[in-house]
């Protein structure tokens, strides 16, 4: 993988070795990016802001899954259920105990982490396909729980919840809620980036790279595998809570297995084992259907539509495009968008002497 660090390793202190940003420009770039998003309400409409918000909370949940799948080498196909648990938990905490939403969101994250630890317990011993099936059980158990636990979720009819509020500032519009999600994204991503620099983070990576070697070196496998599940669920819970207070309605239908697979898709497309890749994958998954929709609308009623007699089936193009994208990514860019992005950056950095 091409690195943006100068050739040779000139780092002369542990401090330099621990840096998050390899170059000054990448730090400035990130700041500019944050400022740009913060200014987005000035330029974008509510719909586009809604997409940004979606990218935000899905990106947080996808990051959780990436810590589990990309950094620890575990697998989970029940991530949407944890996402849903966070959403219901936050709505329930607010409705039942009248806790302000600003506290509900982290509390929902912690509660989801605890649930994640319970369902992650098999992960201490299982891996690969067996673990996948164990997490599949979490998906179905939680989904059924959502549909039946009237007191907690409002049953199949779902639960309506209140918008985010802080000192009388109500974030009930896209323009305002964007800042809530942006703040959450910054906090959660900074936490993850730092986590990977700690002893625990390195232990997770060691477990992924070779669990036997890691164990020989003194890494407690059971502990770190379960911990990874807890962290992943925490992220899913926070993402879900942010979703709940954005949509203001939580319903069991949203958290099906397809959604879990979609999270896996985000992580794979974005880049396994990459912090920023999670956000890029989420952005891709949110924007792709929009782009396809535009294409489908352009196609509707046109010559191709008539020739192939697409008619109402045109709306299925959207679903098919997502599947196609995943396949193409697996074939042409198995390292994800983030890898492609690094290649582009390296190209311009080294231009014109890229070889």
């Amino acid at each position: 993988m091409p690195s943006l660090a100068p050739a040779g390793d000139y780092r002369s202190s542990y401090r330099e070795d621990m840096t998050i940003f390899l170059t000054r420009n990448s730090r400035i770039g990130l700041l500019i990016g944050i400022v740009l998003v913060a200014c987005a309400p000035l330029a974008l409409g509510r719909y586009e802001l809604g997409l940004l918000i979606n990218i935000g909370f899905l990106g947080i949940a996808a990051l959780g899954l990436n810590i589990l799948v990309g950094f620890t080498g575990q697998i989970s196909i029940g991530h949407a259920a944890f996402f849903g648990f966070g959403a219901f938990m936050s709505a329930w905490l607010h409705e039942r105990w009248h806790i302000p939403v600003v506290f509900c969101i982290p509390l929902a994250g912690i509660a989801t982490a605890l649930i994640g630890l319970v369902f992650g317990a098999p992960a201490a011993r299982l891996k690969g396909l067996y673990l996948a099936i164990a997490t599949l059980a979490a998906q179905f158990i939680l989904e059924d729980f959502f549909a039946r636990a009237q007191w907690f979720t409002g049953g199949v009819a779902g639960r309506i919840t209140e918008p985010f509020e802080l000192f009388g500032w109500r974030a009930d519009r896209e323009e305002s809620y964007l800042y809530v999600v942006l703040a959450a994204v910054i906090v959660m991503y900074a936490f993850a980036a730092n986590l990977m620099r700690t002893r625990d983070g390195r232990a997770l990576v060691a477990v992924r790279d070779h669990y036997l070697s890691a164990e020989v070196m003194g890494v407690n496998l059971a502990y770190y595998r379960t911990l990874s599940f807890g962290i992943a669920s925490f992220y899913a819970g926070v993402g879900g809570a942010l979703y709940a207070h954005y949509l203001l309605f939580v319903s069991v239908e949203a958290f099906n297995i397809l959604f879990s697979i979609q999270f896996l898709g985000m992580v794979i497309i974005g880049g396994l084992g990459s912090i920023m890749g999670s956000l890029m994958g989420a952005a891709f998954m949110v924007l792709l259907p929009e782009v396809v929709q535009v294409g489908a609308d352009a196609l509707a009623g046109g010559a191709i539509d008539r020739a192939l007699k697409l008619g109402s089936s045109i709306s299925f193009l959207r679903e098919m495009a997502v599947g196609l994208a995943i396949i193409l990514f697996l074939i042409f860019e198995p390292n994800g968008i983030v890898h492609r992005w690094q290649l582009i950056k390296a190209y311009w950095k080294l231009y014109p002497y890229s070889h």
Partner: protein
Amino acid sequence: MTMRKHMLGWAVVAAMALPMAAGAQPIPLGHLMDLSGGTSDVGTPFAQGVNDTFAWVNKTRNGVAGRSVNVLAHDYGYQAPRAVSQYQAWSRDRVVGIMGWGTADTEALVRFVTRDRIPYVSGSYSAALTDAAGKSGRQGVEATPYNFFYGPSYSDALRAMLQWAADDWKAKGKPGRPKYVHMGANHPYPNSPKAAGEALAQELGFDVLSPVTFALTPGDYTAQCLTLKNQGANYAYLGNTAGSNISVLRACQTAGVDVQFLGNVWGMDENAMKAAGTAADGVVFPVRTAAVWGAQAPGMANVQAISRISDAAGTAYRPVHYVAGICSAMLMVEAMETAAANGGQVTGERIRDGFYARKDWIPKGFEGVCVPSTFTANDHRGQLNVTLYRSRVAGDTSQGSVKDLVAAGTIKLEPVTTVALPRKAEWLGW
């Protein structure tokens, strides 16, 4: 070359200026459809009816008060969260009204449309949407001042069928108490009339069996049919839509279950009768139009004109839900016209008042097709007269189209009775 460029430029300018010259901005109206989800079997003809009606209104009546109606149709796949996010996307388009669909999403959107004052004509006839002022005092039932629908509520339709069933039991002179069972998915839509139906069944002297669950999607429901058989059910309510009900009917026919099925208003139509074949014979269900396709009625000419919007040849057979879609859309059209009358603004509040402007309201030009509705500020139970039909399938339906089968008399909708329910205060919102 420059000449051509000029002409092109002028053409663009002219194209942009034309709508402005007409002096009227189109009226944005949301339309949530289920073309791909769990209820798409009946959602598709209903949505087609709604879309065709607005296209017809734009074409032949020059829209509403000279402004064309811009229908923003969206297929939400019967997923309430998708409907809610689409609703939020529409708020930027400032829709003045919404033609909606399912129970879960309509009930989820109640608070939003009440807050934003957007009249909402749903395909859901859940009784929880009728308590307009929130005066019923029922737990969990909110005020729904902006929710309307064309037809009797699910609960009222079931009440009517239960009354018919009680009479039917007596008429047949069978001994003992009849047994009633509610069947449907664990979903807000089939659940909606469950409590109301079971309560009335108890009152009418039925033994109420514990409900039987089957999913909204087609599948193998032999187990459910054997439950019916073992428990000796006499009357079974099918709470789902046609697609999954067909599976139950066929499985029960195979299992040799002798039950009188009572269908939900969305539970049966001509397409389902063709698909289910003789298994669908005898199902009693409510029809909320005074005439079905092919019948003679003064309003039928307009219905056929609307049908030709999407079927220029005029040969398609339209099931009951298509015609119901027309009547639902026409309520919205006339309420908008009332709002626009005397130079008024077409706003949500004025449209809502438009729904209250008439008594025994039949959209003009649809006499004999649409059934009269009456809405008041406290009570959105538009219809309390429930017309029951029985499906008649005389033979093999696997050959030929629905149109041919109806013409040959293989498939027939046979009127049974009309039950007039009292406007009981304690039934409001339930």
